[in-house]
């Protein structure tokens, strides 16, 4: 019998920046070991939703439960054990410029050891572990000696993925994983993400406006529009959802219920 409690449960999540309401009562359940992809137009609050779950932004109202615990009520210190179970791939990789690739990959492991959440590794052990992780994302371990600035966009994404999975997180977040990549590299990154999530048995939330990516990564897909998740369904129904807003978005039609401000 499977556990009916969602790994991540969001209820009535609201966030506004001044007069601009970004999230207006988001409800979402993500079951353990599944991947949920949030799609939506630019500026609809997808990144804000992720940042609220990560604790980088404080929501105005609502609850975010991880394993049944509302993390919005926790102090930063109380959140630490939850953060140690989360991995995140940022849109542009967000690799640390001042560190080498291998130091970036094992940064989370070193930080967790400092906080007493994992074993302390020597530099040689860390470097070897980074090599293994780089191989997992299809890279030559020798890349570990390079600086992030020496890598292409696709390589930076892969290093970011290696860093995100280094601590074998229970939960993974992906912020626009294929943005800025060519279609082939996008498919490669999506494949790596799907592999990593499956092998680790992690629960994943990805945000994207790339429909092909949403279909490759997600077990379920939901659309964020006007601050709410207006539709949820299987990736196979994405282009035939029956919801006029979703259909306009997924087919990229100019005419429909979504009014785009083109600045005229």
């Amino acid at each position, binding site marked *: 019998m499977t556990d009916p409690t969602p790994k991540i449960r969001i209820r009535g999540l609201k966030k506004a920046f001044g007069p601009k309401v970004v999230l207006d009562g988001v409800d979402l359940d993500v079951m353990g070991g599944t991947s949920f992809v949030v799609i939506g137009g630019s500026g609809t609050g997808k990144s804000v939703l992720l*940042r609220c779950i*990560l*604790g*980088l932004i404080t929501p105005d109202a609502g609850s975010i439960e991880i394993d049944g615990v509302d993390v919005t009520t926790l102090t*930063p210190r109380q959140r*630490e054990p939850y*953060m*140690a179970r*989360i*991995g*995140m791939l*940022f*849109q*542009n990789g*967000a*690799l*640390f*410029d*001042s560190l080498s690739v291998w130091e970036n990959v094992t*940064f*989370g492991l070193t*930080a*967790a050891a*400092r*906080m007493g*959440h994992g074993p302390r590794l020597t530099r040689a052990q860390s470097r070897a572990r980074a090599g293994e992780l780089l191989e997992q994302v299809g890279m030559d371990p020798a890349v570990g000696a390079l600086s992030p600035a020496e890598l292409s966009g696709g390589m930076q994404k892969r290093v970011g993925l290696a*860093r995100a999975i280094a601590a074998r997180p229970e939960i993974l977040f992906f912020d626009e994983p294929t943005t800025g990549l060519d279609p082939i590299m996008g498919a490669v990154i999506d494949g790596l993400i799907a592999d990593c999530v499956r092998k680790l048995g992690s629960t994943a939330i990805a945000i994207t406006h790339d429909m092909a990516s949403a279909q490759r990564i997600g077990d379920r897909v939901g659309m964020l529009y006007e601050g709410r998740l207006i539709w949820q369904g299987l990736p196979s129904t994405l282009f035939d959802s029956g919801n006029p807003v979703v259909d306009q978005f997924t087919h990229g039609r100019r005419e429909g219920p979504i009014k785009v401000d083109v600045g005229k």
Partner: protein
Amino acid sequence: MNGILDFVAGLGRAVLDMVRMAGKVALFGAVALSHVVRPPFYWRTLWGSLVEIGYFSLPVVALTALFSGGVIALQSYTGFAQYHAQNAIAGIVILAVTRELGPVLAGLMVAGRVGAAMSAEIGTMRVTDQIDALTTLSTNPMKYLVTPRLVAGTLALPFLVLIADILGVLGGFTVCVMKLDFSASAYIAATIASLKVMDVTVGLVKAAIFGFLITLMGCYHGYHSRGGAEGVGAATTAAVVAASILLLTFDYLLTDVFFSQ
């Protein structure tokens, strides 16, 4: 009448903004300092910042001090020679260098070099999500980025000022002996006679406070930068301007506290 009211309202808003800003900076500094005594400690970041501030700023601080000492000697000679008071030049040089020129010029040089670089580095980290990435990797950004830099600035600037003091005096000595035909032994004797431990100590205390203020401004403005490359540029400018103004303001206040009697 409306024009006057608008002016007063604008003035009030500016004052309130300034007070609000001062409160935010003070809180930012207090939070960063609270991490000094709470582990984990990032020794590598601290060492890197010490090398960046203390070692790589040496050439610019050394050259500035050397030439400033020379200029003081030259200008003093121009004035004092009229009254046959050239013997006082060694005392003037060491007083000016240890009390004021050493700490202030070293501080301004470091504000321009290190404060700007620090603000740009942290600002770039902010706008490229690297600071958020630190949080997701169980690392407190204040503890990792800000605290080591504040400690490094506070420790490194007194070292730089000590070097600046020595080179400033050397600059004055070189000009007086090589150009103005002073006796080297007489100049050294006059310098030693005028050297006061209190002057040097206060200069070093000033330097420590300036080092803290410069790094605080660099970190604060970088940490709160917004809006891509333009935001980082604005933060860098703000950091250097704020550090320079604060440095000169605190220089006056500290001089008043230590030397006003």
